[in-house]
Every structure is written in structure tokens, then in C-alpha cells.
């Protein structure tokens, strides 16, 4: 197999397979969690749980990445807070608003949306890469994180890091000829898609259960989530 064949393979059949694995894997994870059953809450609420849940999700998407909920706690671990925040913002911008990615989305979804100019995307990619390196270093050096971190957590970082790195190389025509680095980039994305349902990177799906639930519980008790 030459590079051109490889390219067609990773963006064709392998990508489709990885995407299907991702979708069904995530569905499986979600269904198994939901199937464990949910107890009804009979305690009367002090304020609307629905409003609390929705507001909390909005606030944590718009305000908390920049202004921490308890500032004094975030100040004690600014690296995790900042690097984590920057990475997530960068990820969103690059994957959702990068021109090449929007084309890829269009090929999957059938429609497209406006994009940001390349230098901006490039900037966000660069800070995300730095953030990931910082997060990796942080896991090695912070005593709490050293205790909590297991091998899969390092694999998570690596599996997310590789698409960023290869994408960055590709944009800047570094290291390898375009076709090769493009192939490797898509391959890393395929690997990522397969790894997500098997790992804690899937947290973004459960976020939409736990975060509103947090908001609802605090609202029920008359407190600000």
C-alpha cells in the first residue's frame, strides 16, 4: 500500500468504521448508564429545578471557564484551571470553526457554517498544544494528580495531542510531505474516535447529565449552583 492508498483508506473505510464505532460506542455507554435506573425525587423544591439545571449549564459554558465558581479554590490550582479551560476553548474553535474541519463536518452532516480565518485557528491550535503539554506536566508533578492519574489518563492526553500536533504540522508544511502528514492526521483522528467511547474522554457526554443535575439539586435546595 502506498501513501495515496493509505490516505484513501484512513479517510474512507477506516473513518466510517471509526465514526460508527464512536456513535454506537457512546450510545452504548449512555444506555447502560441510564438503564441502571433513576430514583424519583419527592422532596418539594425551593426553586425550579429545571431553571436551575439549564442556567447552570449556560453559566458553566459562558462564565465559569473564565470566572471560576469559587475563585479562591481555582487560585490554588491555576494550572489545571487555566490550561484545562484554554484547551477546551481551543478544541472547540479548531474543530468547529476551522475551514478544513467544517468541510469535513459538511461531508458527514451535509451542511456547513461560517469559519474563522486560518491565523486565528492556528493560534488556538498552538495554545491548545501548549495547554496539553502543561496538563501532562501537571499530572506528573502535582501530588493530587499523581495520585489520581492512571495509565489511561496519559493515553487520553496522547490520543488528543496527536491530532492537534499533526494538524499543526500539516498547516505549516512541517516534517513530512503534505499527503503523508495528512494521512497521519486523519489516522490519529480515527484512533481518537475509537478511543473516546472506551475512555474518560467520553466525559463530555455525561457532562450533559451531571451538570444540569448539579444545577437542579442546588436550585432545589435554594442555593446557587
Amino acid at each position: 500500500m502506498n501513501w495515496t492508498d493509505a490516505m484513501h483508506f484512513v479517510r474512507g473505510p477506516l473513518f466510517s468504521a471509526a465514526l460508527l464505532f464512536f456513535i454506537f460506542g457512546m450510545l452504548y455507554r449512555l444506555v447502560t448508564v441510564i438503564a441502571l435506573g433513576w430514583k424519583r425525587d419527592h422532596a418539594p423544591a425551593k426553586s425550579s429545578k429545571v431553571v436551575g439545571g439549564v442556567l447552570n449549564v449556560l453559566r458553566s459554558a459562558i462564565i465559569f471557564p473564565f470566572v471560576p465558581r469559587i475563585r479562591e479554590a481555582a487560585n490554588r490550582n491555576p494550572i489545571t484551571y487555566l490550561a484545562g479551560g484554554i484547551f477546551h476553548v481551543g478544541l472547540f474553535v479548531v474543530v468547529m470553526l476551522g475551514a478544513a474541519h467544517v468541510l469535513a463536518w459538511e461531508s458527514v452532516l451535509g451542511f456547513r457554517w461560517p469559519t474563522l480565518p486560518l491565523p486565528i485557528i492556528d493560534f488556538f491550535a498552538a495554545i491548545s498544544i501548549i495547554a496539553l503539554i502543561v496538563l501532562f506536566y501537571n499530572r506528573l508533578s502535582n501530588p493530587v494528580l499523581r495520585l489520581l492519574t492512571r495509565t489511561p489518563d496519559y493515553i487520553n492526553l496522547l490520543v488528543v495531542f496527536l491530532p492537534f500536533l499533526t494538524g499543526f504540522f500539516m498547516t505549516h508544511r512541517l516534517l513530512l510531505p503534505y499527503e503523508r502528514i495528512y494521512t497521519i492526521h486523519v489516522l490519529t483522528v480515527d484512533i481518537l474516535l475509537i478511543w473516546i467511547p472506551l475512555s474518560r474522554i467520553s466525559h463530555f457526554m455525561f457532562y450533559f447529565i451531571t451538570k444540569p443535575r448539579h444545577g437542579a439539586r442546588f436550585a432545589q435546595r435554594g442555593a446557587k449552583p
Partner: protein
Amino acid sequence: MATNGKIRETALNTYIKEVGGAVAAQLEACTRCGICAEACHFYLATGKPEYTPIWKVELVKRLYEQRFTPLGRLKVALGLAKPVSEAELREWVEYDYHACTMCQRCSLVCPMGIQIGDLIHMARSGLQAAGLTPEDLQQALDNQLEIGSPLGVDDDTFDERMEWIQEDWEVDLPIDKPGAEALLVFSSIEIMKFPDNIAAIAKILDAGGIRWTMSREAREATNFGLYAGSDELETFIAQRVIGPAKRMGVKRVIVSECGHAYDSLRFRIASLMGETLPFEIVHITEVIGELLDSGRIKIKPGVLDEKVTFHDACKIQRRGGNFDQPRQVLKQLAGDQFVEMTPNREEAFCCGGGGGVIATKAADTVRRAAFTVKIDQVQKTGAKKVAMTCSNCRLQFLDCVDHFALDWEVLGIAQLVADNLVK
């Protein structure tokens, strides 16, 4: 209690039984970012990484992964998974019972909104079922189950105490009075250690014209089933209040200054019993707020002429939403002399004595260490008077004031109100 050799099995089976969708979703959502550590006073005071909130549920989490997730099951099949051992369960007794008050401060900083305090409560459930509950906590629980009170308040003691309070404080304490609209329940701490609180609350309710009563049967709201982590025992104990309250046909159950009783009765018990209760459950602080708002009681403005600050209790404020009423009281009594700690309200640090920690002798060192966070907060305000709405907090404050030789005065809000009622 599990016999030797069955400890592990019992604990793990309890965990598996308790895993529902909510628990699973939260365990799945955690990214092991470690930020929760920075919110927990036990970690902050000791710097011990094992006191990181989410680490306190590590065993539950590992078991969950091995039993319920595809990758975890694969690891078990390949013999790569590390099983939860009895030695580990014993190790976690310290993390779950000594170093957590289930105050839920950590859930506020968790980017995923995980209710870590609730998960730690669940972590306790397995340890409790396996008989690993700290000895004195278990003793208090046994007392409550057998005698009806963790501090051993039996019928005779109760009658004696109530008679004594009526005489010494010159208040009327109606017991099992028919036709009452509200049933007042106390914690054993108040019955045994803060009798003045009982007198104070009686005065407030009388001044507010509330038709209230106490009950000989439903006299204790404390719930060591909650501390121990057993939903079953918590429900059993709470039934002693719920049952009589239903029979008496009261409209309200008023919980005195006890945070855990309030948490259990107000927010947990209906769901544990699977029914909607036919009466309201309110905290005395809420009643004080209502009486002040409606003008049914008045307090003397400006009588406190020294700086006073307020300690937010985890169960009554952060987990109970009663932030404004005590502040309203202090602002009236102290005016500008009322100063806030930082952080406060939802973000406040808990006292470190809740969740049964203060009843656990082996936790004394870490409990007092956790209190240093509070000392720092209070000292920054410059106040020597600290008011609160929870007798459990008050017990912790008094113990630590003594231990650290602090020159603070520890005050209860109900008592402040009762002492300063405008007749």
C-alpha cells in the same frame, strides 16, 4: 454486621446494589482533574492527597468500572484488574468517615458538577454494611436504634430534662398537645448540651403565636443512620418523626438548629420512603425569617455593639438555602458591626465537625486540623463573636475554641433572637 471474611463481599455487594443511573453518570463524568481537592478543608488543612474528595470514592469507582464498563470488564477477564481488597476498605474508613463532612463544597468547584459529597455518603454505605463504621459512631447508631437516642436520652431522661428546662428558663414546653399546627423536633445535642436552645426556640414560637408542640415519641431528629451511610437505617430512624407527625395531623415539622436532621428530613426522607409527605418540613431559621418578615416578632435593633460574623453551615445554608434569614437577624441586631467571612454563603467552608466526624474520636486530629481553615477565615474578619444556625457546628466551634484557646464567643441565631425579642 458482616462476619470476618465476609467484610469485602458485603461491602462490594452494597456498592453494586446502590449504583443507579445518577451514581454511574457521575462516576463516568469525572476526568480526574483533581480540582475538587482545592475546595476541601480536610485536604487544604493537611495537604494529604488522599483527602482529595474524589479519591474518597476511589474504591466505589474502581468497582464500578470493573463491574459495569466494557473496558473494565475486559480487564477483569484478562486478569489485569486490581480487585478491591479488605485492607483497602479498612484504609478508606479514614478517608470516608474521618475526613469528610459531606458538605458538598467540592461539588461547586468540580467542572463536571459531580455531587462528590453524595458519592462519599454512598462510599460509607458499603463500609457500614460490612461493619467497618468507626466504633463510636456505630455505638451512637446502636444507641439510637435501641434507646431512641444516640446520646442515650431515654423516656425518663427526656422528661427530667424538659421539666428542668421549663423551671429554669421559665418557658412552657407543650408535649403531645392535641390540635397543634406544628411539631418541633430537636437533636440530642440540644437536649443534652444546649438546653438553652430549646428554651430559646420555645420562646420564639410562643412570641410568634404559633400553636406548637413537642412529642415524646418523635422527640429526636438526629439521624445517625445518615451519618453511618445507611439509607435503610436512616429511613427507619426518620420514621420515628414522620410517623407520629402524620398521626398528629400537623401542618409543619419544625427542625431545631440541627443541620443533619434538617438535611435528612427536608430533602432526603420523602425520596427514600418513595412518597410525598403530607406536611412541610422547615428549619427554625426559616420560621424566624417568616416571623420577622410578617412582623409577628420583633427584635431589638443595634443591641450587639461588637463585631459579629456568621458561619454558614453546610447542611442549613449551602445544602438548605437558608442564607438570608440569619443575616437579616444579625443585620438588625448588630447593624454595621455584622461582618461577612470570605468566602461565604454557598462557598463557605464547613466547620469540619459534621457528617458524624465530631462523634468519631479517631477523627479528632484531622477534625481540628480542618477547623484551622475556619480560624483563618474568622480572624480575617476581626470579629470575636461567631453566630451560626447549627448545633453540630456549634459543638465543633466550642471544642476548637477550647482546643486552640481562642477568645471567641460562639452564638446560636435562635438564642440571639430569643434573648432580644421586643416584648
